[in-house]
């Protein structure tokens, strides 16, 4: 329902005076379209080409092409239900866990097509880690939370190696100082913001190359959010990050490039400064200035 309303206004903006009906929208959807701005990179860490995603019969993503550069933070924004999460979850095959979800297209992580059916998702997910909307520490100690990934992937042969990995990861997640005296207390006893940083530490512990984040701050208060954003900024020194967020302000704050999705289409990708001061596409403009609906 909401979507309908949005579509209407979106239509309004595109073809200003012409009243837009459901039909024309459907037409639009069927049409090929072109992403404006600058969806490609020279030094792409991940490249997605001609991505189409279906839930059963329903298409959720239409022909998306996007590169994510090395050590870049790409934010994905767009109205609710536009397919941001779906797209993000393609990047480490988390959509495999949804039976009815069918993913088409090429996803290159460096040179490897990860959407290959023969691809083993276990090592893939060790390379492309994910942080979720709600902080979800395992009901184990802080130490075990961080050590879990290295353990299942056999990253540490000795206990001391593991200790080191844990410490390093917590350091990088900016949590070490706060938890070093209580590593063996439960991770669920931390505050929301700390839990989310713990989840990030857990992800870092398997040394991923790319970190995906699906609305990582939506369950947090402003202060915890600010800390996570700060952390994302620090992480972007070493990791490639793709972040989905509902908060345009957050996208503006943390990302280098911003991708705007609309009804499953990638409408615009541009440098964040550009998107938030002078976007190329009317839909992007309408969304970020609050003119939808």
């Amino acid at each position, binding site marked *: 329902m909401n979507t309908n309303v949005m579509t209407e206004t979106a239509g309004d903006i595109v073809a*200003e005076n012409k009243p837009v009906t459901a039909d024309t929208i459907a037409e639009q959807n069927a049409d090929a379209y072109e992403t404006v701005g600058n969806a490609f990179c020279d030094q792409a860490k991940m490249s997605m080409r001609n991505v189409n995603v279906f839930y059963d019969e329903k298409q959720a993503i239409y022909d998306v092409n996007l590169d994510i550069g090395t050590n870049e933070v790409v934010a994905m924004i767009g109205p609710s239900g536009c397919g941001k999460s779906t797209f993000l979850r393609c990047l480490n095959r988390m959509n495999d866990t949804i039976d009815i979800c069918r993913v088409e297209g090429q996803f290159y992580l460096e040179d490897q097509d990860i959407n290959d059916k023969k691809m083993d998702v276990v090592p893939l997910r060790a390379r492309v880690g994910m942080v979720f909307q709600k902080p979800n520490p395992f009901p184990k100690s802080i130490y075990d939370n961080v050590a879990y990934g290295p353990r299942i992937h056999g990253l540490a042969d000795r206990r001391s190696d593991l200790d080191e990995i844990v410490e390093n990861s917590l350091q990088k997640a900016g949590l070490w100082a706060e938890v070093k005296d209580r590593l063996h207390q439960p991770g669920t006893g931390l505050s929301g913001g700390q839990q989310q940083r713990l989840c990030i530490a857990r992800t870092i512990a398997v040394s991923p190359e790319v970190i995906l984040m699906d609305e990582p701050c939506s369950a947090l208060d402003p202060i915890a959010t600010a800390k996570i954003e700060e952390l994302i900024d620090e992480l972007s020194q070493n990791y490639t990050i793709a972040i989905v967020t509902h908060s345009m302000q957050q996208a503006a704050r943390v990302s280098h490039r911003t991708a705007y999705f609309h009804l499953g289409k990638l409408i615009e990708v541009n440098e964040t400064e550009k*998107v938030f*001061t002078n976007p190329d596409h009317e839909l*992007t403009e309408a969304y970020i*200035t609050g003119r939808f609906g």
Partner: protein
Amino acid sequence: MDKLNIDRHISQQYNSALDDLKKEFLEMGGVVEKQIIDAVQSVAEADVDTAQKVLTTEQDVDAREMAIDDLCTQIIARRQPTASDLRLVMSVSKSTRDLERIGDEASKIAKMAIAISESDDVPHGFSELRNLGRQVHDVVDMTLTAFARYDVDLAVEVVSKDKVIDREYDTAMRELITYMMEDPRNISRSMNVIWALRALERIGDHASNISEQIIYLVKGLDVRHQSADEMVQQLNQE
């Protein structure tokens, strides 16, 4: 037609805040424009009353400037504007300063008018002053229209017209200096005319500044410190 869709926000309050901002700005523009007309008229007709009116209006203009700036700050604090909204706020915040300066310059002219009126005879350069005054008023008018309509072409025209004004100012200035050299007794009176001319020239510059802001507002391009040709070129590239 409102290309920037200022009235299309979900939030009516936001719409009306931006709308107020624009209205306030244009109103201030109107006041300032009136000041120019009055000031030029007061000089031309040695009309002290009109000049006095211009001077009193000055305070109104100052108050308006502060009000608009306050409005801009509030919109930024309360609405976190982005994209075109942000550009609108920023360019209004910049342009309001220009309007205020235009008002100042008009006051200066009015002051000259009072000074001139104290002597009996008509100094040289009055015709130039009147001529330039008309042109400057045109330019300011065009600027305000361009702003009201978000009309980039008109804004560019303002910038090129300002060059013409500058040239005319130079000519008038040279003539006046020549005249002063011819009749040194008149120097002090001529100086008043010079200051008035100078003020008119500055008004043209300010109008040009505002036009640059209009281009920034509509196109998102910062075209300051460029000639009109460069501007047109850059706009066409888009």
